[in-house]
């Protein structure tokens, strides 16, 4: 367990020293600033605009970090051959994969926390209500990030950075369209289309389950049961994907 923590902390340090993270933080702040500007220009629903765009900024920046840092977590180590000296240490390959994952999760947690603090400050500054549903939405955004990071890491254990990015982005988009997939399956007359779409529906993660941003902006909470089960779903899915990543990484030749 100590080895996992050592690798996780080093990965966290790596991302802290990476300029990309700071560029993204500036981008997020700019996005939140823009929401304030746009809110000033709207006649109606002044607060809703700030609330909506703030949540979207937290989610967007988190997903960008998850995918674009996540795909490099392992593949960059292989490309740069830094993995040689790590794998030669008294640690298992699974410990290495888990450490890399947890390191990025720690980075994401800090990022979400800082952005949420800025977000809440802006809301308070403009007199918009800070309600429980907003925090529920942020918590589920974080679960979504856990899942997307696991997917990015999974693909990066066996493919190039570019392909990993394409696969992860693809799954991210499909994951948000699963409700539509169900609709297509129901409407289609072809048995083959029905079964293929149904298979995609059940295999791909249903990221819409973790998206309560719309109703949170309106101040409508989800039940504690929903929040717990959606979190469990996302976490278990991520754990399953991580197990797959470890399995593949264990069999790899460098």
């Amino acid at each position, binding site marked *: 367990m100590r080895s996992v923590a*050592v690798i996780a902390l*080093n990965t966290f340090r*790596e991302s802290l020293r*990476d300029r990309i993270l700071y560029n993204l933080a500036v981008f997020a702040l700019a996005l939140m600033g823009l929401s304030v500007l746009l809110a000033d220009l709207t006649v109606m629903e002044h607060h809703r605009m700030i609330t909506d765009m703030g949540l979207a900024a937290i989610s967007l920046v988190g997903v960008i970090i998850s995918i674009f840092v996540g795909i490099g977590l392992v593949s960059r180590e292989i490309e740069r051959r830094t993995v*040689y000296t790590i794998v*030669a*240490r*008294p640690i298992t390959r699974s410990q290495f994969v888990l450490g890399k994952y947890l390191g990025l999760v720690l980075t994401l947690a800090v990022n979400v926390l800082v952005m949420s603090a800025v977000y809440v400050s802006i809301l308070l500054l403009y007199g918009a209500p800070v309600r429980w549903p907003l925090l529920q939405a942020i918590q589920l955004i974080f679960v979504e990030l856990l899942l997307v990071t696991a997917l990015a890491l999974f693909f990066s254990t066996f493919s190039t950075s570019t392909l990993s990015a394409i696969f992860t982005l693809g799954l991210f988009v499909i994951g948000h369209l699963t409700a539509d997939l169900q609709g297509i399956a129901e409407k289609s007359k072809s048995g083959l289309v029905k079964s293929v779409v149904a298979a995609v529906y059940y295999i791909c993660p249903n990221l819409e389950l973790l998206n309560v941003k719309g109703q949170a902006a309106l101040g409508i909470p989800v039940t504690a049961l929903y929040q717990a089960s959606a979190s469990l779903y996302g976490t278990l899915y991520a754990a399953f994907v991580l197990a797959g990543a470890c399995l593949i990484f264990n069999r790899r*030749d460098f």
Partner: protein
Amino acid sequence: MDAIVVDGLTKRFRSGWPGRPPATVLDGLSLSVRRGEIFGFLGPNGSGKTTTIKVLMGLIRATSGSAAMLGKPVGDVRTRARIGFLPEAPYFYDYLTAEEFLEFYGALAGIGRQDLHARVPALLDTVGLADAATRQLRKFSKGMLQRVGLAQALIHDPELVILDEPMSGLDPIGRKQVRDLILTLREQGKTVFFSTHIIPDVEMICDRVGVIVKGRLLAVGKVDDLMTQGHTQSVEVVCREFPMERTQELRALAARLVQTGRQVLIVLPGPERLPDALDLIRKHGATLVSVTPQKHSLEELFFKEGARAAAPVERRAMP
């Protein structure tokens, strides 16, 4: 118990195209490295040195055969705590300072924070990087990276040190420092296994050497034995004022005779003809200038054995 035992190791890499035969990089390689010795693993580029080391370090899996280090089969995670490894042309986390880098690798080897605080500065001093302790690795030269790489291989005070081309890309001073460091490790009772394609490195510091060509071990033994065993040593004799009309007698003994002005260089095919040559020089009143036994260098062995290994393949290729 030997430090490294490799038995019939074979590694084939699948080709990317269907129908193409796999490439055999290691072909039934067997060798053993004794405890406390410096073993040089010598071979030209592409002979299978790095592949062997990768199998030993668990970076790749052998197609067949077995390998063990410190009495445990390769892949045993715990044993790695007793082994230090420096890969070829290493590249490390360049955002870390030399100090952080060594602390990270030390922590991975299970060394406590207290011990690391004492060990890291001492090791940086040993590899001559004490002044660069707080500098990020991205600002390091190639030679400095190689040295900090050596430091990470030694951070946990391993019993066995495996170095893949540790002197490549270093200037003469850097090469000497690495050689001295390897010799110090032997003095401390450690086993060092290092690969190289540069023969003088092996001749200077190794107790034993293994020559690998095309994935097969061609020769193994002490450096001196390999250089003399089965290979006749020539002797070069230089004399002055040898009568021209008598050089025929010298020619009968020599493999080669070169006359330059008043001097004659006589290359004898072996030391057994030396007394006869000296008798002739004395008999004809010539002055002896020098007698130099010519040792066959490993280089000659390297090429000779390499050509021999390649020969059957070439013959097979002939129609």
